[in-house]
């Protein structure tokens, strides 16, 4: 098993899935799709269709950019979730919860842009009500499915707050801030009840505030993620001095190999102990 730490891949995931994804997504959303302000759910179907037809090509380009950005987002989640795994190691329940939630959330995230693209694809050539229905599904995926993102964020926060502190690389306040952020996003659930006002899917409190808060939270967690990588670099270098080069930092391109890297460590149980425990369980 490889024990060396490759900070370059971690930094790449964090930068690509965080800041780069954000810039790309906002570019597609604001400049091309022109979703500022976003169409209200109480618009008649014909008005929505006219709005889409009015800038159809730009809107489709915007959706292509947004779905490209969404595809990167999983890298960022992985770059954070791995630190939960570090604190759990042998019993990674919160890590597994994060991976499952992120996988579901990312799928829905991509489907949002997919539905908006399909809505615009034949806008003006089919019944406006069909366009409106597909359009609405995109928005419900975008905001109403917030529960999986909340499950992911809470798992991340609990990993910081409840897992053993000796291997933590994130400050405890980041866990508390994440829970506060998740509370803010939960307003997305209210879009099912309103077709106008602040809690409709184009409203300030159901959409703009959670969306804005999400990007602020993402920026803060990216900074903390980069600090965690730097801390791990330092820890790996120290560990290498104590235990040998197979615990060191690895820079891709050096092509160095470390012999005998598959040594058993003190955290791994001996075969005798495993069989003894299995025997007790059987009794």
């Amino acid at each position: 098993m490889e024990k060396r730490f490759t900070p370059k891949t971690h930094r790449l995931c964090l930068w690509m899935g965080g800041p780069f994804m954000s810039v790309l997504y906002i570019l597609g959303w604001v400049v091309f799709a022109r979703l500022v302000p976003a169409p209200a759910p109480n618009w008649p179907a014909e008005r929505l269709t006219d709005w889409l037809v009015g800038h159809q090509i730009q809107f489709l380009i915007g959706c292509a950019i947004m779905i490209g950005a969404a595809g990167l987002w999983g890298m960022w989640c992985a770059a954070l979730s791995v630190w939960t795994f570090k604190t759990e190691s042998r019993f990674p329940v919160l890590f597994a919860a994060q991976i499952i939630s992120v996988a579901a959330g990312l799928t829905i995230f991509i489907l949002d842009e997919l539905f908006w693209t399909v809505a615009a694809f034949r806008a003006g050539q089919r019944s406006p009500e069909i366009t409106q229905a597909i359009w609405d599904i995109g928005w419900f995926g975008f905001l109403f499915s917030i529960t999986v993102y909340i499950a992911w964020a809470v798992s991340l926060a609990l990993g910081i707050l409840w897992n053993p502190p000796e291997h933590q690389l994130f400050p405890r306040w980041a866990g508390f801030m994440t829970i506060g952020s998740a509370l803010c996003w939960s307003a997305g659930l209210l879009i099912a009840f309103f077709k106008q006002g602040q809690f409709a899917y184009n409203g300030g409190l159901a959409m703009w505030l959670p969306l804005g808060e999400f990007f602020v939270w993402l920026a803060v967690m990216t900074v903390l993620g980069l600090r965690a990588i730097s801390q791990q670099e330092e820890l790996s270098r120290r560990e290498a001095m104590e235990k040998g080069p197979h615990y060191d930092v690895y820079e891709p391109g050096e092509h160095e190999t470390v012999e005998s890297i598959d040594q058993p460590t003190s955290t791994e149980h001996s075969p005798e102990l495993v069989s003894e425990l299995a025997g007790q369980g059987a009794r």
Partner: protein
Amino acid sequence: MGETTLAPDPGNIALPIARTRDTSSRMRTRRVPGEIGIWAFILTDMSVFAIYFLVFAYSRSQEPEVFRQGRLLTSLPAGVVNTFFMLTASLFVALAVQAIRQRKPGTSQLLLVGAGLCGTGFIINKHVEWSAKTAAGYTPLSDNFFQLYFVLTGIHLLHVLVALVVLVYMFRKVRRIQRVPTASQSRFIENGASYWHMVDLIWLGLFALFYLAS
């Protein structure tokens, strides 16, 4: 508030804004109640509510007549009663923390029960108030005033429910104190108390906006 020298006793975590006196350097440090993390949570949540309040003000400026009519339809007595419950609950929680500092966990438990009763009273009163509104035909779908009224006070109500759960855990922590609280017991109790005060503060903002502002 006088100066206090922190002893190594972990129970001293519960001291109010305790100042350490370093006799060699005369350096003094201040501590925050609970831990820094709970204040990150409070800052996040309060910022979100601050934006809620700003959006309320903006919406009111867009539809002044709708909001004026809506405000006249809210029940000021119900709002006052709920303010009383919130402030009293906060006072009980503060006194409960003080009782722990005075090595009186039994008194602290009684005060926490008092806070819990106030929180329950708040929920019952909210139920009565909302029921009267819906019976009169005012729902979150009536207009933008009632949308904000029901949703924002509803989000606050969820905070109160969470606060009651926190209170149960605080009560359990206090019950386990053997005269002097451990560092983790103190931290949890102060975190919970800070959260209660935040819920109280948010209510005061909501009360001013929905029941008092013309």
